[in-house]
């Protein structure tokens, strides 16, 4: 027993120092969310490609999700090591700006930008739309607008809690965009056929695939994954009144030690090479116009994109969450 323990220990501590990086090269620290850097995420490939060009070392630090990246930055203040933050969405940038966490990037807006969004401090690197995913073998006449989804009491729906997850927050904004003052009524209708509300996306998507629900809140690009696996059953319901857009963004932090490298990195994210990787691994639409793979051409395109300004999100988010709580708790 002791010997096994000893061996395990030695493995850990020998492997540890071995991965330490060379000291002479500048280090670019990127805070991002964990699935970005994971084995199947785009992180490692982008890191390798950028390191080959920049003669630097990219240190990707993975933190739970976009909100937690922001919180970590707020906790660290001016002591942060982060040069770049990657993985916030447009709903969060107002908080980031108010807390003065980022600086201007001075990058000229590319002419081939595919997403209709540009900002002086954040660059968009990919985007998608929130959508309800269904199995077309079970749902023969899918809803074509939000009202149809809400009015069919037979359809069971699962979504994420806006208090704990980004897609959940997306739904909150989406419903408020469409229904405005009538949002509480919409929530009540939705509550009548909600199976459950989960903490994060993983739980709810799992429930959906298990057959516990007919619809799950996810991304309009989610079917791509299934298509790549040869499974063509899953579709995203595209609504004529619009689907809420989520744009993922990156920025240079206020106290970046390597602002030039950080700027290079942001620009690098917008190259076709990186965009290709992002599209394949992050399963989101590319931010610049490049050819889409076959799987992306098979999925339903979104006809109308909805969004709020970041300031509106910051201003109303809490009120709307409260509204949602009151509407669905009764």
């Amino acid at each position: 027993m002791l010997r096994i323990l000893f061996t395990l220990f030695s493995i850990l501590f020998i492997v540890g120092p071995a991965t330490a990086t060379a000291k002479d090269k500048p280090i670019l620290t990127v805070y991002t969310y964990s699935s970005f850097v994971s084995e199947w995420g785009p992180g490692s490939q982008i890191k390798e490609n950028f390191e080959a060009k920049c003669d630097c070392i990219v240190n990707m630090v993975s933190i739970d999700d976009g909100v937690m990246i922001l919180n970590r930055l707020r906790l660290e203040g001016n002591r942060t090591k982060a040069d770049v933050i990657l993985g916030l969405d447009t709903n969060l940038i107002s908080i980031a700006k108010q807390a003065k966490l980022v600086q201007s990037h001075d990058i000229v807006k590319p002419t081939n930008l595919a997403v209709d969004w540009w900002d002086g401090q954040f660059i968009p690197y990919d985007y998608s739309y929130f959508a309800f995913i269904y199995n077309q073998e079970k749902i023969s006449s899918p809803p074509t607008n939000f009202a149809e989804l809400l009015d069919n009491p037979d359809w069971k729906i699962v979504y994420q809690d806006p208090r704990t997850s980004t897609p959940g927050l997306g739904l909150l904004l989406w419903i408020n965009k469409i229904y405005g003052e009538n949002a509480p009524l919409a929530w009540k209708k939705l509550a009548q056929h909600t199976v459950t509300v989960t903490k994060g996306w993983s739980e709810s998507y799992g429930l959906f695939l298990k057959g516990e629900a007919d619809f799950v809140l996810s991304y309009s690009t989610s079917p791509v994954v299934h298509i790549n696996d040869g499974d063509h059953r899953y579709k995203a319901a595209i609504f004529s009144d619009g689907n809420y857009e989520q744009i993922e963004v990156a920025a240079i932090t206020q106290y970046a030690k390597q602002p030039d490298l950080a700027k290079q990195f942001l620009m690098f994210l917008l190259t076709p090479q990186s965009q290709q990787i992002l599209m394949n691994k992050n399963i989101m639409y590319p931010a610049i116009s490049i050819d889409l793979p076959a799987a992306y051409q098979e999925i339903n395109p979104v006809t109308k994109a909805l969004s709020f300004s970041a300031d509106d999100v910051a201003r109303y988010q809490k009120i709307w969450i409260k509204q949602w709580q009151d509407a669905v708790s009764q």
Partner: protein
Amino acid sequence: MARCGQSIKIYLPGFTVVLFVSTTVFTALIALWLFAFEHSDEGFYWDNYLFRVVSFTFIQATLSTFISIILAVVLAKALYQTQFIGKNLLIRILSLTVVLPSLVVITGLLTVYGHTGWLAWLCDYFSINYSLSIYGLNGILVAHVFLNFPFAARYCYQSLLLIPNEQKQLSQQLGFSYLQTFRYLEFPIIIKQLLPLGGLIFMMCFSSFATVLALSGGPKYTTIEVAIYQAVRDFELQQAVILSCIQLLFCCGFMLILKRLEPKQAPQLIHNIKPYLVKITHRQKLLCYIVIVASSLFILTPLLAVIWDGLYYFSTSFLTSSLLQALLTSVLIALCSALLAMLQAMLLLSTNSQLQLRGKMRLSESGMLLGSLILAVPSMVLSAGFFILFYSYTDSPLFIFVLMVICNSFLTLPFILKQLATPLADLTKRYYFLSQSLNIKGLHYFYLVEFKALKKLLAYNFALACIMSMGDFGIVALFGGQDFMTLPYYLYELLSHYRYQESAFVALILLVISFLLMTLFEYASYDRT
């Protein structure tokens, strides 16, 4: 002078541990609080909604605790009165549910009880209308009972085994009825052991979060932990700290109430070489078997569902180096945390036993309560607090490793304490003065008296601590966990990349490793003499 020296020697080990645990927890809380005040938030607000959340959390946790405990007593009694093939296996499995990550539990339960689950399928086959819904309060209770009842049952069963054989034989000679046996022999022991355990289960249910959310059917039923999580996410740190203080208050309050319910005079427990099987009638035996079969179905089917999913989709391509790395990390963290937890538990308990020997019950109680403190503090709050304290070390994998080991050891400490406290105190009562007169002290005393007598229980607790630490991954949320990919973390990563088949396999591995650890340590502790 000699007296003074002796009392320092008695107090020191336990005092050190209590100080270590409570300083760590309170420093994290205070660090967070100071930070929150400095970066002025909106402050605390208390509304109707929050009141509803707190009261629901309390009701839900109380219900879950009582149902778990009552079922545990019933099952333990049934197990204790019967012998059957596979009993040891079943008992070993009883400790596994408590360690599974919430996601695996939800998946397993839904495969069995969900809309399209096995039960629904079975009902459909026999054309019965399946109307049971796993969502809402039902679902929360089912999940909490599933998580806690088997563990409590095993614990209770082990306590029953400690009733001296002579007493059982005597009760039979005296012609005790079934109820009388329960009233005079078993109940006092069960109460002595299960009330403190009830406190633990209450804390676990009180702070349970992902499971509750997923099965609650919507925010109608949310726990205070969700409110805390939300507050941390929204960077309303004051709110988070105050809410966790409320949570702490509730949990400690409940523990103290249970403590008050405990009878002052309790029987002493001993380790029987071979438990004496009480004779029961055929009808009682039948009843026992029904209880055992029903509980086994309840406990085993969701686990079987996890195993089935894992095997069904298995492919050798799943055995990647990252999986092995995650496995290795998990096992290493588990072993280290368990070692540390055992060390802390033994130190604290040695003081505790001495205090009990001297009749200082108040002091002993508060020591034990402080040792269990961490269960009531949400891991998000703890993690944020630690972060403020140690932000400059987040680059060091070794530091994160140590932090994870310490936190996990704290998390498992209450469980070890609860299980070992009574037996150790009883041992001390019995052998302390004898060993003093024979000049057996220190490690020698530990080995000759405590280790020899409680080998099995120690091994079991070590294994339990191991597997509990394997299932947990809360603390790394803020710190960045890529260097320390544990199995549960890996599982989530797989899911977020739509890799459901691999994730099913990882859940299976988690289950198998937990089972193996349990088996391994039980064999290691097997007395061959």
